[in-house]
């Protein structure tokens, strides 16, 4: 490889899984999985540089060129709509964006629907397609609390297993969009580091096909 490749990985379990896919595609940097306080990890001979960032920030690092490639959830891509290339669906980190409400909630279409969410754009577009008048309440965490305390009628949030919802007497009512992790690339890096990025894409693709 002749050019340094900067990779932004999402912190957490998903990121570790993703790193293993990168490594299996020939883009390894064993230090990455060490339990250290280091922020950046390099594989000098292979000219690879990895860094862990908050999952919702990966797309920003890639869009602005601090990272050439990265892995971000489709939820983040739909919400922030960064100008990047979405090269692969990695088929991991699978979950869905769903509408959830208190069990037995009756949606009264005569009233404005109050929607609490971390994803105002996704929620807004979903209801606008239905022509539904909504009041979006943007929250940054503990979304499930909103309908319980009467702050909102429903929530639009990521549902993995639905356990948290169930434990709080909530239930998913509609699926907005399925979510999974995507391999993304900066549009300019794609021009100048095409061979390296394409090698990575092919390596990942092969793993996806083998796991089918």
């Amino acid at each position, binding site marked *: 490889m002749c050019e340094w490749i900067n990779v932004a990985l999402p912190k957490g379990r998903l990121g570790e899984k993703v790193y293993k896919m990168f490594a299996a595609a020939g883009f390894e940097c064993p230090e990455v999985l060490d339990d250290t306080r280091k922020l950046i990890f390099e594989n000098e001979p292979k000219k690879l540089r990895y860094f862990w960032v908050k999952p919702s920030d990966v797309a920003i690092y890639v869009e602005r060129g601090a990272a050439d490639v990265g892995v971000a959830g489709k939820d983040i891509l739909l919400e922030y709509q960064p100008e990047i290339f979405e090269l692969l669906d990695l088929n991991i980190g699978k979950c869905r964006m769903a509408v959830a409400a208190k069990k037995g909630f009756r949606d009264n279409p005569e009233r404005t629907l109050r929607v609490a969410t971390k994803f105002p754009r996704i929620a807004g577009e979903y209801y606008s397609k239905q022509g539904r008048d909504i009041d979006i309440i943007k929250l940054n965490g503990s979304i499930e609390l909103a309908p319980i305390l009467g702050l909102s009628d429903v929530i639009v949030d990521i549902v993995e297993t639905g356990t948290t919802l169930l434990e709080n007497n909530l239930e998913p009512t509609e699926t907005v969009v399925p979510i999974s992790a995507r391999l993304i690339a*900066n549009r300019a890096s794609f021009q100048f580091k095409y061979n390296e990025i394409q090698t990575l894409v092919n390596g990942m693709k092969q793993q996806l096909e083998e796991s089918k």
Partner: protein
Amino acid sequence: MNTTILKNEEKVLFGLRNLFGSYGYSRFKMSKFEEYELYVRNKDFLVSDSVITFTDTNGRLMALKPDVTLSIVKNTKETDGVQRLYYDENVYRVSDKTHAYKEILQAGLECIGDLDEYNLCEVLLLAAKSLELISDDCALNISHLGVTSALLERPELRPIRRELMTCIGEKNSHGIASLCAKRSVDTEITQKLQLLTETYGPADEVLPKLAAAFTDETAQSALAELKTVTAFLEQVGSVRVWVDFSLVSNMNYYNGLVFRGFVKGVPTGVLSGGQYDNLMKRMHKNARAIGFAVYLDLLERMTEEKEFDVDVLLTYTDATPIQTVLDKAAELTEQGNRVSVQKRIPEKLTYGRLMELK
């Protein structure tokens, strides 16, 4: 002239003026304001949805220009032959993400009239040369909407046309597969759409693959045009010219060739352009048009950071004769140094060397 004091974008701007002028393009100077109505009618043509507006003294709703092309087209008079115009202007936009106002320096050109293949080649040549002025390491990507639009006109694809265009623009092949599967689109059509996202490379490698897949007349003539233009560009320039079908622009305005330029070190495209005959039609102008813009504001980051604020810090005391200070400062500046003359050493000033006059 000493050009070392010029910022990178200023150097490029001078170069572009010279380049455009040498091909007979005349400068189009315009006011910063335009009636808002022009943008309401052509909202989708704009990069950003929001326009900065205000009411003028006559009560008309005005806008700070978010775009130059629309104003040029509006003022185009129908004449025989081809009009060649260039501009370098600030445009004003609202960032979709931060909602902050932004002033953006743009330079570009428009070629309007009874265009033929020569005109298309000329504009693309100037786009390539513009990139060369910015950096030695640059790339120009070209696509032709004739291929894409014929396919997207199919009735079964119309309801998902917008989503498909987004996927093509993102090289999102899996997204196309999933959209098409939901609508039970024919496999052959799905594969053609996916081929567009994967088509990226030198014209001689890429075009034969497309020619085999897209056999309809519109697509074939589009591919032939692309072949002529890319073959011409490969002969004349040092810029890497590749075909990239993920380039999509709003087809209500654009048609034919579209292109985007990148330079190493800038994370987004620095040049964007295309043929916009459809915009001309919408604005009731009987002419064809092609043009491009260079986003000069993006080049700011490419300027090399200077190590120090000044090369020499020259200090003097109350006892130093003023003439001695003036002579020394003149001597140092004539040697090409950046000099700061001070009585005391300023706290935050960084300097290459210190020279003390007693």
